[in-house]
């Protein structure tokens, strides 16, 4: 992985530099690649703006949870930290704090403080959305992104030519989280079903369509053979997903587009959007290219 930028001029996903090439241990080098700080600055905008959208829409159930304290089932870390059930007022204050700190963090104001405050307040919000029975796994990469981003330190939009291994580690961790969301869900299918062919040849999509399918997608209930083929395909790309971590250039763009289409399909058919994971796919892209050249700091 630690090759210098190739001479073809093709897109590099994690900009390889001479310094990166000199990293002695290839494993350490892979986990801490030198990447542009501007990439982090832009990725932070994606993440923190999405956090605001998330708490107002996808995970907006925290305020109603204030009315149902008896149904609180705290997760391990919430039990360890003795976090009590949320009240309606507490949830409203938390919501306001998340929005304010996320706006500051997205704009790059008081970067470390605002980043850590989002990590704390959004983490608490997650305990309150996931701590009432159902735990959704589409938030894994987003929560990890919010925790690792403040470790990068200061990153400005104009830092296009400034590279950082701290930034490289943070985005690498987000990439790994995204990929393991798919890979471990395939592993879990194996564990939970005992025999993976039972899952792939079974009626999971039928079950999902019957419970929450859109009207148009219920047509597919007449075609169980097609749905079984879909289950095998899902299993195949989930198991193969780790190779995306090693893709570059067109292959990487192709993989990102493929996963976007997959999520679009599941959204249209089942209303499952997986947006918190989808947004984290941005960690794979050379986002610093979005910065106009005239805005980049002079070298």
């Amino acid at each position: 992985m630690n090759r210098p930028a190739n001479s073809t001029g093709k897109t590099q996903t994690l900009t390889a530099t001479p310094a990166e090439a000199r990293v002695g241990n290839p494993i350490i080098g892979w986990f801490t690649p030198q990447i542009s700080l501007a990439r982090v600055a832009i990725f932070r905008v994606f993440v923190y703006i999405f956090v605001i959208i998330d708490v107002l829409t996808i995970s907006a159930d925290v305020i109603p949870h204030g009315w149902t304290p008896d149904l609180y089932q705290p997760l391990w870390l919430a039990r360890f930290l003795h976090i009590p059930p949320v009240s309606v007022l507490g949830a409203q204050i938390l919501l306001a704090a998340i929005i304010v700190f996320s706006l500051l963090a997205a704009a790059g104001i008081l970067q470390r403080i605002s980043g850590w405050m989002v990590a704390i307040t959004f983490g608490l919000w997650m305990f309150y959305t996931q701590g009432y029975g159902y735990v959704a796994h589409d938030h894994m990469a987003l929560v990890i992104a919010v925790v690792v981003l403040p470790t990068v330190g200061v990153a400005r939009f104009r830092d296009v030519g400034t590279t950082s291994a701290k930034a490289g580690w943070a985005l690498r961790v987000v990439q790994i989280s995204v990929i393991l969301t798919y890979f471990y869900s395939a592993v879990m299918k194996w564990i939970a079903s005992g025999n993976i062919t039972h899952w792939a040849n079974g009626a999971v999509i039928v079950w999902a369509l019957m419970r929450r399918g859109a009207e148009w997608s219920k047509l597919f209930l007449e075609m169980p053979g097609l749905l079984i083929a879909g289950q095998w395909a899902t299993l195949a790309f989930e198991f193969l997903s780790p190779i995306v971590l090693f893709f570059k250039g067109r292959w990487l763009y192709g993989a990102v587009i493929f996963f976007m289409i997959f999520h679009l399909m599941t959204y249209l058919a089942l209303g499952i959007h997986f947006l918190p994971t989808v947004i984290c796919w941005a960690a794979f892209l050379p986002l610093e290219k979005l910065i106009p050249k005239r805005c980049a700091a002079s070298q």
Partner: protein
Amino acid sequence: MDEKKPRLLTKKKPASESDDDSETVTKPKPMTKWSIVWRLGATAVALVILTCGQFLNTNDFFPLGSLTQYATAKDLNGEVNSTCIEAQFPGEDEPRRLGFNTGTVGIERGDIESQLDRVISHPELLQTLADSYERLHPDEPKPESMILCRTVTQLENGQSVGEPEHKILATWEVQ
């Protein structure tokens, strides 16, 4: 870039992380050994917890819990269960099906399904759904009882047969 480094290192001492200073800096100082060690250590610990979460099949370690959604195999000749919530209102002959979501009863269907055994053995927990319904619908009559139910659809070769069966899982007289 590399020629600049020695000059910068002599200028900036100690090389602090307050990186919002010089515009001439194009490459921050290399990470310290400790900086690399804790990052790789934290990554390794998180991966171990996440992996254990899968094999222990627990969501308890959120955000590093098991990725169980849609992981259970479903029999092509089995049943499709869907949990529902109904309320009996005064003056109405039949219980009325309510939306099983935060906007209607303060909680999502998935949350109750994830603690279904607990709710069935403690039907008094349905009181909190009734309370939420009242708060969210102040102009509507108060329910007399809450009914936790399930619709069961039989499959044959992956296709549904017959009408869904309706089962009552728990009832609670609203206080």
